[in-house]
């Protein structure tokens, strides 16, 4: 690609100032700090600075302020020589003129355009969730933006009934946060078990039981059929749930409108190749709005990896940089629950191709499942096994053979191998090093005794045991007492 028609830096315009767009701007400036290669314009629809969406469940839970989830402060754009336009909507892309238009009538030309418009909450077609104007009904709030959090917190009073529609990761995080604040939360989920994309039925059941201990109730395998503001939800089994607030977390839809209108290839999202290019070589897409076969949706890790690749390409830092997909570990960030899930977890225990190791301990809220093929991790669920997730994910990411001790692998802790040195001085093997600071074995102490030492002090001056950190004094004293008793 050429460096642009005009002289001077290549003009990059990023549409979207969320986690993907903000990250791309940072990555561009990290590669071109003085603005010699690229100029950067960022257009954001929300009226404020970019924020960290991953932390919104902390805001709902009340452990973080809204301010502390901002990615940038007000001086960021100026300090980094970025033309930042917040509260501005892009109305059209003119691909021939390489120009975008804003709702305020303004226009900006680009040499390269990056669409990072993200996704919006999907509202299920339950009667009453939208009012007659197609707006969200009173008391209905999606869980998607910082403003949504504000609205949720404004409605959620201690002791008030709240219904969360959607038993996926985000819905459960919102439910846990609200339950922690004292709301009476019920989660309505159309599938028979929670987080069915990531969990099998066994894990989903243990998870529901664990969350129930934190005061959350569930309506599983049920659909909400009707919402009446000020009253509540009616479900398809005829039951009724009172609700002052309905939090909707039923999935998202990529914001592809602008791309479709500009004639870009759009399927579920904007279709991109490994360079994150759309069918227009000058237009890229990253994050939730992009559709790449290796990128799972709704997660930040792929967006960041994609931003890095696009920054490499647009600054010319590494023109061979490509995005090949992201291996995902799903974590539920809910206080009191430790859940990781990765890969394909739906193999049955009697599978012919896979080795499946499974451990269920519902009373203690624990469920672990490990799916291996040829010694490699293919998938895993770890609920209530906080120590194992890290190493299981590591083996999954790197394709390295799993440890042969499968149980230790699942527990995340090596089981005690050799017994600790016997406390009994009589049965302690002679080769045991009693004083590590001075490399003194039990045999050396016994020899010193036989040569005339008759106390701990004598043993110390003869062998130097106890004279380093002093940590072995009790053991040496025990040996001295034992030797005295055998004299």
């Amino acid at each position, binding site marked *: 690609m050429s460096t642009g028609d005009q002289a001077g830096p290549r003009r990059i315009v990023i549409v979207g100032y969320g986690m993907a767009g903000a990250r791309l701007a940072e990555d561009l400036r990290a590669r071109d700090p003085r603005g010699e290669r690229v100029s950067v314009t960022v257009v954001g629809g929300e009226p404020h600075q970019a924020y960290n969406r991953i932390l919104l469940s902390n805001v709902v839970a009340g452990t973080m302020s809204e301010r502390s989830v901002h990615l940038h402060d007000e001086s960021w754009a100026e300090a980094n020589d970025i033309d930042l336009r917040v509260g501005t909507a892009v109305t059209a892309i003119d691909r021939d003129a390489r120009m975008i238009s804003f709702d305020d009538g303004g226009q900006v030309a680009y040499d390269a355009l990056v669409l990072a418009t993200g996704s919006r909450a999907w509202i299920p077609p339950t009667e009453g969730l939208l009012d007659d104007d197609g707006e969200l009904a009173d008391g209905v709030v999606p869980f998607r933006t910082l403003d949504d959090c504000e609205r949720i917190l404004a409605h959620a009073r201690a002791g008030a009934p709240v219904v969360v529609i959607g038993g996926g990761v985000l819905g459960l995080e919102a439910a846990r946060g609200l339950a922690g604040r004292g709301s009476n939360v019920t989660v309505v989920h159309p599938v028979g078990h929670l987080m069915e994309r990531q969990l099998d039925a066994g894990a989903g059941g243990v998870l529901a039981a664990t969350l129930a201990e934190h005061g959350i109730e569930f309506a599983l395998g049920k659909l909400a059929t009707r919402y009446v503001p000020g009253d509540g939800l009616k479900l398809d089994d005829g039951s009724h749930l009172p609700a002052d607030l309905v939090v909707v977390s039923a999935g998202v839809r990529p914001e592809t409108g602008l791309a479709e209108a500009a004639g870009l290839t759009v399927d579920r999202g904007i279709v991109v190749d490994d360079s994150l290019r759309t069918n227009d070589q000058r237009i890229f897409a990253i994050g939730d709005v992009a559709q790449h076969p290796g990128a799972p949706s709704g997660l930040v890790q792929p967006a960041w990896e994609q931003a890095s690749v696009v920054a490499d390409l647009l600054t010319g830092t590494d023109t061979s940089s490509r995005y090949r997909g992201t291996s995902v570990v799903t974590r539920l960030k809910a206080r009191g629950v430790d859940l990781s899930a990765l890969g394909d977890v739906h193999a049955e225990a009697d599978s012919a191709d896979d080795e499946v190791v499974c451990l269920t301990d519902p009373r203690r809220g624990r469920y672990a499942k490990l799916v291996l093929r040829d010694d490699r991790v293919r998938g895993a669920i770890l609920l209530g096994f906080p*120590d194992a997730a890290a190493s299981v994910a*590591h083996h999954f*990411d790197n394709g390295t053979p799993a440890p042969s001790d499968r149980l230790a692998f699942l527990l995340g802790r090596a089981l005690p191998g050799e017994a600790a040195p016997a406390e009994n001085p009589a049965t302690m093997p002679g080769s045991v090093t009693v004083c590590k600071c001075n490399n003194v074995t039990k045999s050396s102490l016994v020899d010193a005794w036989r040569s005339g030492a008759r106390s701990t002090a004598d043993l110390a001056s003869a062998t130097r045991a106890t*004279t380093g*950190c002093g*940590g072995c004094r009790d053991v040496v004293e025990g040996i001295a007492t034992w030797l005295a008793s055998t004299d």
Partner: protein
Amino acid sequence: MTVTAAATTATSTGAATHCPYCALQCGMRVTPAGGSATVEPRQFPTNGGGMCQKGWTSAALLTSPARLTTPLVRVDGELTPATWDDALDVVATRLHDIRERRGADAVGLFGGGGLTNEKCYALGKFARVALGTSQIDYNGRFCMSSAAAAGSKAFGMDRGMPFPVTDLAEADAVLLVGSNPAETMPPFVQHLPSDGLVVVDPRRTPTAERAELHLQPAPGTDMALALGILHAVVADGHLDQAYVDSRTVGFVEMWRVVASWWPERAERITGVAAADQRKVAATLAAANNAYVLTARGTEQHANGVDTVSAWINLALALGLPGRPGSGYGCLTGQGNGQGGREHGQKADQLPGYRKLDDPAAREYVAGVWGVDPDSLPRPGRSAYELLDVLGTETGPQALLVFGSNPVVSAPRAGHVAERLESLDFLVVADIVLSETAAMADVVLPVTQWAEETGTMTNLEGRILLRTKAIDPPDGVRSDLDVLHGLAVRLGQPSERFPTDPEEVFTELREASRGGVADYSGVTYQRLRDGEALHWPVPSGPGPHSDEAHPGTPRPFLERFHHPDGRARFTSVTYNGPAEPVDVDYPLIATTGRLLAQYQSGAQTRAIDELRAAAPEAFVEMHPDTAERYGLTVGDIVRVVSRRGEVEAPVRLTSASRQDTVFLPFHFPGAQRANLLTNPALDPVSRMPEFKVCAVRLELAERSGVHVDR
């Protein structure tokens, strides 16, 4: 307490001094015995009367057959005994000749962190005044430079532990990062709490075994771990907002970065459970008194400065530094690792922790030295960069080495040995024929700890006097004598390079006056009287009375050393090791230390008892890793990196990470772990990445006990 220690000394027979090895500088008494001496520990705050096997056996080196007792000059390729006059004449003539032909920077110096303050000071002055070269640095660049840079940035001053080591005893929680004191400075562990000890180390070391919680991150990922724990501190409501508001600047900018490092993300990179990260945050926050301590494991990286800054950020967020009974500290390693980085043997430095590029500092120190400030060279190359250009068109053609053994201790050691080989002229002053000395054109035998007097500055910034206990063997001279003899031969006035340590120290006091590390109020007499003097010790009365300034054991209690008195948060983010693993080099190698050996082993390998305890290198790995490469215990494995290969026997431990192998670096020849290591340098401190490089394993030799299946 110290006065008592000094008082006992007066009534006993031996000389009260300190151990020759690490920065704990255990109190020791040396008593002459025949031609040699005996040593025993004495009560001193850092060691509480304890001493490890290295200290106990240290006297063996005084009379060891390995000891050098005559200068050696290479004649027809052989190192041949010579008189001192002849040897010094050869050195002076060759140096003069090389300078004439190639200029002052054609001669380099390489110092050491085990040298006394007096020697470090004299070495820096000798380089700048007698040789006029900018090319001086020292092996402390390989130890302390990252912590030093991060400490200076955060607090305005780098004093490893800005509190006496005995303060640790009061702590409810200590986070010990990349440090294995149970092997490297055993008596230190008595200061650690039995509950509330958290150890961060990729290996399950003897220190980690004592911990309440051991976090085992992948080598090179420490910074991500620090960011994850710091995130948890803020997200879980443990931030000390009042402290952050009143004593620091930069929190908001730092948080913008750390906000993106939630523990689950750090877990993915480090392998340390998010739950454990949160537990550490909670443990440190719940403690009445807590410390964060770092050491080489987390510092010896190409991002070492930023990594230490991340740990300091954590300590600041918890409100620890500058609070009585809490704090951040760096555990200095070498005997004089602290003093050695203060008085001018560093490429960019003048005495008193002054900067060589600061015009006021140049003028002041030049005044003390009686030379024109403009005659002082500019800052020179850092240690590895200096070694890397030896014998090349642009680098020095001659090198003088004092108290260091870079053939074993430098990264990419094979290359460094080649560079040394290519020199026109190599001079080494040492007590034994180290691997580096064996390559020299002239070897100068020098005195060691019990045979000379001088000061050391220990890991808590306390200045100690090591007193001469016995006479050196005939034919051995002190490094100060060597520098004097060379300076005079190079045309310097005789009085400019004194040989009496106390006289040198008096000059050092003057040169440090008004600097960050101000020693001007320290005298040998005050040290002999047992005063506990932690720098800065300005001359004149102290702040609270008319008596002499009592030193500064806890310098940050009221304010930090920046002009506004506040500590700095530094915005840092994680980028990973310089050499990631790949298909060809799929495992991580990390290096470290054993209890019975010290540094390059030049001293300790010459002591029978220590050699028996730790005779050779080994490659430690997980049994599953060994099995994957068809290895079993006792097999000789070849560890191969992009820079070299090492052969050593396999050792197995199921506590090892499966992606990591460990090698101790004390051993010479084909067992040099540093043949593998990566000389990628930290952009600020120029610290090489000793602690992580990519390797592969190959079977070199089947052990006799192996049974083929």
